[in-house]
């Protein structure tokens, strides 16, 4: 009973106090949470420091064992030069590969010839901070560093929807 009360108290507290926060977020987007991870070369990355000179950023969570993730990123790879020319967008592919498969990341991106920034979220810190359930999961960040769109899963054609959202930001 005691623990139920705690749970209720917390839920009520969160619900009550977060109403405003979520209202703000809906109109302005929320900031990218700050977590310290590494890029594929082992350099330290503070996620909240991501920037693209005021142009949009796509954050795409993926793994070397996830076929739809690779399909999405390979599809965008073919469109990427056009996307960059038209909107200046940058894509950051965040690998959630763990110790078993993380050594596969660099060979894979090299052989696929991706031009993306590649980050390694081996401990899942960034994934948890953004509330990602499953991969693939894609976030769109505007020029002010606010998350304005997010999408779970990938089926062919979803890249067009993502691009429409990117275009909206650069109008």
């Amino acid at each position, binding site marked *: 009973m005691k623990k139920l009360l705690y749970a209720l108290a917390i839920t009520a507290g969160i619900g009550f106090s977060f109403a405003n*926060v979520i209202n703000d977020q809906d109109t302005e987007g929320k*900031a990218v949470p700050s977590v310290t991870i590494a890029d594929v070369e082992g350099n330290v990355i503070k996620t909240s420091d991501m920037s693209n000179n005021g142009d949009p950023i796509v954050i795409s969570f993926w793994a070397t064992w996830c076929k739809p993730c690779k399909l999405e990123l390979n599809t965008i790879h073919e469109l990427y030069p056009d996307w960059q020319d038209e909107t200046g967008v940058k894509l950051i592919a965040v690998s959630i590969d763990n110790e078993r498969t993380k050594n596969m990341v*660099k060979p894979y991106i090299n052989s696929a*010839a991706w031009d993306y920034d590649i980050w390694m979220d081996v401990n899942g810190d960034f994934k948890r901070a953004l509330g990602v*359930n499953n991969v693939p*999961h894609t976030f769109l960040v505007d020029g002010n560093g606010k998350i304005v769109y997010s999408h779970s*899963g990938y*089926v062919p054609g979803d890249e067009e929807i993502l691009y429409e959202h990117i275009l909206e930001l650069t109008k």
Partner: protein
Amino acid sequence: MNPNRTYCSPTIFIVGCFFFLMSATAFGQFDLGKPSVSGNIETIFQYLQSDSAINAFAPEQKAVMNTYANINYTLGHFRAGIRLESYLPSVAGYPAFYSGTGIGYRFVEYNTDKLSATVGNFFEQFGSGLALRSYEERAIGLDNAMDGARIKFRPMPGINVKGVIGKMRYNFNDGVVNNSDGIIRGIDGDIALNDVFSFLKDSPIKAKIGANFVSRYQGGSNDTLVLPKNVAAYSGRFDLRYKDFYINGEYTHKINDPSENNGYIYNNGHGAIVNMGYSQKGLAVLLSAKSIDNMFFRADRTVTGNQLMIGFLPALTKNHTYNLAATLYPYASVPSGEVAYQLDLLYKIKRGTKIGGKYGTDINLNIATVFNPLRHDTEGDYDKDRIAYTGLPFDKSDSLYHFDFNVEVKRKINKNLKLTAAYFHFIFNNNVNEVTKDAKGYVTSDIVVLDAAYKINKKHSIRAEVQGLFTKKDKGNWATFLVEYTVSPHWFVAVMNQSNYGNPDEAKRQNYPFGSFGYTLNASRFMISYGKQRAGIFCIGGVCREVPATNGLTFSFTTTF
């Protein structure tokens, strides 16, 4: 084994912190910037039916559910998070030690550029994780979150130091987390030499070294044995990169840790992993080696099974996703000891060539072998020192634990059609990793997969898979057919059937038909599935997760906010 209940006072603490943070923003006492909330909710509901033919058994309740809600709150340098969990009761195949509704995870954290301090629950990994890795694989019910305190310190660029003290999550019983009896203490540090030493700044060789020390304290004693109360493991690691080459590795030594798992022997243990590779555009070669001996390192020496492993021993085999390759004979690391090697080769046959075709052809070859380590008799008196054997790292015997050869060829035929063909050859030692009661010793199998994906137009696409598994042992031959139709951005529908058509016992030639239907709206997904399903990694409609064996109706919902 007597896990401690620990949740009351931290709960009050968390509530306090939440309200402190809320009131701080509400009254604008601090200028901490805008708060932000993120998180997710996941619900899996099943209505289960028994089907003894496929060993699916519905519980008395028939309807079962797992639900999770994660909420993270960030305000300036502060972060706090909580996860509520509910199992009423847990879904099919999920461990029974998850039950009830309650708080499964909570933390508060303070972060600056140089410092991070966490109190409550956290996930952590030292180096490659051989000595310490607390992590969560929710789909299969694995969660050994630490509960205690952690400090991360970065005194200057290139130097990282972490310290942790805590207990590990053991189970979630009737809505209450029970933590391990043992306390884990650890410190880890690494140095990026190129950042720290200015004369290496422009060196083309990038080097990083690191080390850690992890210790478990557990009281208690045994009628006949004097048990070490503090058990330590220490590790060293390195990471070298030169242009397109890299090599990295870690060695962990664990002092004697008599446990239920190892039969209370007083041997030391070790774990070693080395990875090396070369990659360039269109070509990659990777070689990995692993040696493990007596590496049951748990937060409680009396516990067996999957829980409370302090260190992580990655399986050195490819993470297969095609259903028959992933689910029938999956290899898992053997903590008592193994020597394993793996080779990966990625090659792209150039586009525009005769063999490569208009768009090029991708070939991925993978070979993995795992052996029993070579063990020698000791000269000492076992009754006195309880040292059961001696051995050396990477000293393998010729007793095979597992062999996996696989090759995958991918080719884009035209703008809309992609074909994939894959072949797998497994020699699986069922005596070491028992996955079936129907066979003893080696099970040799060959698997063939054909996968075709066709984009009908901008929004509609269809994908079909045909898979066959051929073996003379165990349950005989299998076939799988799958068709998946997707309409971007919202809909997908898929049907599949697995058939054990080659089972030597005609009565067991079962079919596993399974259909699913889903709807995605931005970061939310609904899915309804009906049918029979085998356990394994399951990818459908664009998302991969691990699922247990079921028979019945499954409804799932996930959302991220």
